[in-house]
Each structure stands twice: as C-alpha cells, then as structure tokens.
C-alpha cells in the first residue's frame, strides 16, 4: 500500500503542503486497526470505572507506508507519547485516545492537545474517542510555539460559552471550540469515524 502512495500524499504526511494544497479527504486505513485496538484497550476496564489513555507515534516508513509505533499506556486523563523513532522513519505526529469513565465519547482535542501539536511542530495529530476520530494538521500559518496555559484558558472560555449560550452538548462544544482555536492558530481540522476516513472541516 505504501508503494502506491502518491507523491502528494507523501508530501502531506511530511508536512510539505501549504494550507491551500491540503487534501479534502485523508485515508488512515493502514493504521485504523491499531487505532481501534488502542481505543479498546483504553476502555477495557470501563465497567469498573477505570479508563486509560493510550498513545502511539504516527510514522511514515521509507517505503511510504504509514504506521503506528511506540504504543504507550497513560493514566485516566493523560499520556506521554514516545517520540523516539528510527532513523529510517519520518515522524508524522502522535495518536492518542480520549476515554472517560462514564462512557462519554466523541470528545475532540483538549487545549493541551492543541498546544502540544503546535509546540511539537507535528504534521498531524490524531485523537480517537469512541467511533469518532479527529485530526489537527500543521500548516504554514501555524505559529512555532504557543503558551499551553493561554491556550487552555482560551479553550475553557470558548467551551463554556458554547455549552451555556449556544446550548451545545459537551462533544459539540469541544468540537467547535477546536475549530475556533484552529482558526486562531492556523491549524487544519479533519473529522472522521473509526474507519480512518477523514474529511476536512477547516483549512486556515
């Protein structure tokens, strides 16, 4: 599959495309089985109220194949990705899960996630929460660094407003807060299901 990847797809995962050149659709089929497996592991003990975030590193192999390496288990609401990849691989970004003990799913990126994606300069950052998959994509309009504290505070303000003033659900509020912050920080945003087929929602 990797051998059939087009130059443009490789350029996308290498972070070489401009915002205007970003694809409308992204197919992560090569890694969806692992992503779903990590989701299942995240909620393995949810019946007893225990969840654990899981993370992995998204890499592009020398043959153009996409894969998830360095699987790590985190805590109930945090995880530390292992970013150490081999010299023959290109680090694309990270993947992690968003489980919640009461079974809430469909939660997009946190303010900390967005700050992490920006500050690490990752091309693509993925989150899976149940059947929903979200992606942030770095562009030429993304700043080199941001304050995590500021971004988390911005997230809180926007999220609270959407919940109360627009009567949105938690998932909807998180999603549109993500879009606001993507716009503010020049990130592209993709949304899809656990089959790995993502569609662009916002390009800066």
């Amino acid at each position, binding site marked *: 599959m990797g051998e059939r990847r087009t130059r443009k797809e490789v350029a996308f995962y290498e972070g070489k495309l401009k915002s205007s050149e970003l694809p409308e659709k992204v197919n992560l089929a090569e890694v969806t089985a692992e992503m779903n497996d990590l989701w299942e592991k995240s909620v393995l003990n949810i019946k007893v109220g225990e969840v654990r*975030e899981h*993370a992995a590193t998204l890499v592009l192999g020398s043959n153009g194949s996409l894969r998830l390496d360095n699987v790590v288990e*985190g805590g109930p*609401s*945090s*995880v*530390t*990705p292992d*970013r150490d990849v081999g010299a023959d691989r290109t680090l694309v970004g*990270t993947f*992690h899960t*968003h489980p*919640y003990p009461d079974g*809430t799913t*469909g*939660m997009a990126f*946190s*303010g*900390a*996630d967005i700050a*992490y994606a920006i*500050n690490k300069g990752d091309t693509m950052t993925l989150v899976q929460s149940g059947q*929903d998959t979200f992606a942030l994509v770095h562009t030429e*309009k993304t*700043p080199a660094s941001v304050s995590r504290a500021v971004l*988390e505070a911005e*997230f*809180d303000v926007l*999220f*609270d*407003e959407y*919940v*109360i*003033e*627009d*009567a*949105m*659900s*938690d*998932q*909807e*509020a*998180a*999603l*549109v807060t993500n*879009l*606001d912050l993507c*716009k*503010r920080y*020049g990130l592209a945003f993709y*949304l899809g299901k656990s089959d790995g087929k993502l569609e662009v*929602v916002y390009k800066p």
Partner: protein
Amino acid sequence: MNAKRDQDNVIDDSRLWQAVERAREKRKALGIEAPTTDLIAAIRKWEEKETAMGEGNFELKLEVEAIPPNTVDSVQARLKEVIEEVVAASGLDTLLRGQKPQLVFAQGLPTKEGVDIALMVLAFVLHEAPTAWPHLKAFLELLGTRLKKATPRTINADITIGKKKVHIKGMTPEDAIKVITEEYEVYFQPRRKG
C-alpha cells in the same frame, strides 16, 4: 529544567474533563438537560456563524500634502512612524496574527496647484471582525489625533468586514471616524458578552 521538559512531553487532558464536569454542573444548576449530540450540525452552525462574522479586508489610503519645506519623502517617513506606533498602541497588532500591515507608499503625486501629496496605503486582513472592531476604532481615533499635526489632510478608506462595506473619500480623520462608527456600531455588537 527537566521538570519543564517532562511537562512539555505529557499530554494532559484533565482540563478538558474538568470543563465537561463544569458544563454538567452548570446545566444541572440551570435545570437544562444535555442536548443530543450532532457533530455535523454543530459544524454547520459554526460555519454559519463564521460566514456571518466574516473576514474583512481593511485598506486605508492616506493622502497628506507635503507643503514645503517638507518633502514627500519626509512626510512619508513620518506617516510610517505614526502608523506603526498607532497600530501597536491600539492593540490592532494583536489581531493580525503575524501579518505585517502592508504600508505602500506611492510616488509623490503633484497636484494641479503644484503641491506634492504623500500617498500611503495601509492594508491588512481582519480575521475576527467583531473582536477587531474596538481596536480598529481605537486605531482610527489615535490616528486622527496624531495626524492633527499634519493638516491639511484627507482620508480615503475602503473597509470590508463581513458583508458590510464602507467607502470614504476625501474626509478628515474625524469625519471618517464618525462615518465608520455610525456604519458599524450596530453591526458590530459583540455576539457574546465577554
């Protein structure tokens, strides 16, 4: 140092879940039930809001007469200085997201009366028009104050923010501000209370 580095490497989502709990408590206090989730509908709603808010091009043309002993060059240099100061003082620079306001100086334009005019065009894109408005207003007011020293002068401005367009020609800064303020004060009521 190591603690900071460790912190930078951790993805800590706890504030996301705190926000969720806070939302649930607020809904409970207000007696509101959590609505059904429809992410696609939420995206459409967000896109509609964005369209309504719009992005806007701001272009301001300043024409200042260079009355001897001033030269066009010296007037342009002063204009540049004033614009840069006023962009910073009004907080407009915080909304430009890394854009450098484009300052374009045309060549001095000789008038029929033989007086040179220094023409300066200031252009930038506003991405969040409603939140930009207080800064834009402050910018114009400060500019008016600073330009009082450079009379006579006129402002030509083409401002597009969202669907609204304002064209101003040959006005003093005071009159221009009045027109822009009147045009925008209703349109730019903030959607939310901050």
